[in-house]
Each structure stands twice: as structure tokens, then as C-alpha cells.
């Protein structure tokens, strides 16, 4: 494959590889699902799941804007 960078707009963010907007949304969704699953396993009875949603939305927002 000869394309080192995807052609769609890429940004220089903190992630260790070139990403376009779609990639960053995908990464946020992956993080969102991961956090929720871990939360269900380790945190849930003590802390409600909504906290996980808020946490992952914040991280997701950060990834999409700065990734």
C-alpha cells in the first residue's frame, strides 16, 4: 500500500498515528465501549454507570478534537 497518509484531512494530534475525523470518532467509540465494560465489571455497585458515560464522552471529545 503506497498511501502513507489517508487522503482525507489529517491532523497532527497526540495519537501516535495519522488519523482522519472518522478514525478519531471510531477511537472514541472504542474507548466508550471499553470504559463501560470495565465500569460494569469493577465500579458499578459503588458508582453509577452514568459516570462512565460522562467520563468517556469527555475523553471522546478530547480525542476527536485533539487526536
Amino acid at each position, binding site marked *: 500500500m503506497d498511501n502513507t497518509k489517508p487522503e*482525507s484531512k489529517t491532523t497532527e494530534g497526540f495519537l501516535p498515528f495519522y488519523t482522519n475525523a472518522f478514525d478519531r470518532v471510531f477511537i472514541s467509540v472504542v474507548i466508550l465501549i471499553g470504559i463501560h465494560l470495565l465500569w460494569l465489571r469493577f465500579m458499578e455497585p459503588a458508582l453509577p454507570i452514568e459516570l462512565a458515560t460522562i467520563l468517556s464522552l469527555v475523553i471522546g471529545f478530547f480525542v476527536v478534537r485533539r487526536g
Partner: protein
Amino acid sequence: MSRTQRQRAWGYFGAYAFWIFMTLLTLIPIWWMLVVSMRTRVELFGRPNLMLSRIYLENYSNVLTDSTFQRYMTNSLVVSTANALLVMILALLATYALSRYKLAGRDNIFFWLITNRMAPPAAFLLPLYIMFTRTFRIGNWTLFDTQLGLILLYCVFNLPFAIWLLKGVVDGIPIELDDAAMIDGAGLWGVLRHVIIPLAAPGLAVTGILSWIFAWNEYLFAANLTSVVARTITTALAEFVTVTGTNWGELAAMSMVTLVPSAIIVIFAQRYIVMGLTFGAVKE
């Protein structure tokens, strides 16, 4: 004998010893299947004998003369051939589009296509079953238990794989050749016919062969989305285990028979398989 000649002789010897060993490992399971297929039920038990004691063909004749088996075999041939052809055509068009046109997010498309192949089949059977029996329905006709249904469904795992195979091949064809043909007045079809297809022929061949083999070998979908008319040969294999209290001799005979068509194809197309499987390793 000179030193280099002696070295070469030892090299040959080592290579042959290695290959004979590997060949034995490869063939023992198939050989055992052949042995089992030529035994009666009683002969199978007791001390395992890896030698073929006699040629006993009743298992084969039982299988081959069975009209159900003949129907299954025809279905399998039709489904896998049609699927392989369809996959070759669609994959060629899709790959050409992904390789030559600046489509928005084509990297993403390329990756997300292959995720179709990742789905664990068991849970996806249910929506497919509903779709086949209820959604696609014209009067009394449904997609369930038809060859067409299987042909289209097998595209889900074969098409992405085919596009992945072909992408490297088409990327390896210099775009200048396309341009030259276009300047000579060739349209899209002209370019495909006179430039892409001839140059991508080995890749296309291996795509077709592997799709054919995957379709021929598929079991889970065929077993659950057909009932009588369109059943394929692999479902018959499984039926031997569950329904008839496992008649190992006939099971082995049938496995041998299902091997034959793919064996023929692979032997004749051996050359293309290696030429075509480059996955984009060719860089100019």
C-alpha cells in the same frame, strides 16, 4: 566430485528429507480418511491398521448413487461457481474504484469492508433467517432454501476478502497504462478489458479460486438457511454424524468425494495461486 558438487548433493538430500517428512505429515490425515472410507463398520474397531487391507467401495457406491447426494452436489457446484464469478466481477469493479478514484475516506471503506468477515456467525444467523424467510418474499417465494440466497450471502465473507487480495494487484498496475489507454480513446470498459483484466489475471484467478473454495466449504449458513431444495454437500457431511448414528465409513467416503473438485481446480491453477497472492507486496 568437487566440494561444491558434494555440498549441493547434501543440500538436495536435506531438502528431500525435509519435504518427504512434511508430505507425510500433510497426507497422513487424508490417507487415514481414505482407509476409513474403504472399511466396513465392523473392520473399523479393534487395533487401528494404517494399511489399506483391500479395496472396498461399497461406502462410495452408497454415497454416489444416493439421489439426495447428487442433488446436494449439484447445489454446491452451482452455488460456489456462481458465487465465485459474482465475487470476481464485483471485487474487480470495487477494487478498481478504490485504487483509481479519489473517494472520500477510501482507507476507511477498505478497512470497514473486511469487518463483514469478522462477525461471529452464530448470532447473525437469526437476523439472516428472519430476512430470508420474511423480508425477501414475493408471494410464496422466499429467499430461504434457494441457491440465490446462498450465492448472495456468501458475498458477505468472500467479497471483502477478494477486494483485499485484488487491491495490491491493481495498485501494482501503473496508472500511466490506464491513462495511455484513455488517451487512445478507450472508455472505462475498454481500460478494464484491455489493461486491468489482462494484467491482473493471476490475481483474479486466485481470487476466484479461493472464493470458490470458501463457498464450497461453507457449512453454518448453508445448514441453517436451507432445508431441502438448496442444501449443499457440507451439510450432508454433518448429517452423517447427527442423524444416522455416525456411519464413519460413509462419512469418510463423502469427505473424499467433496475433496475431488477443489483438488482438481487447485492442481490446474497452482501456478496462478502463487503469482496472485501477493497482498500488495509488489512495489515498483
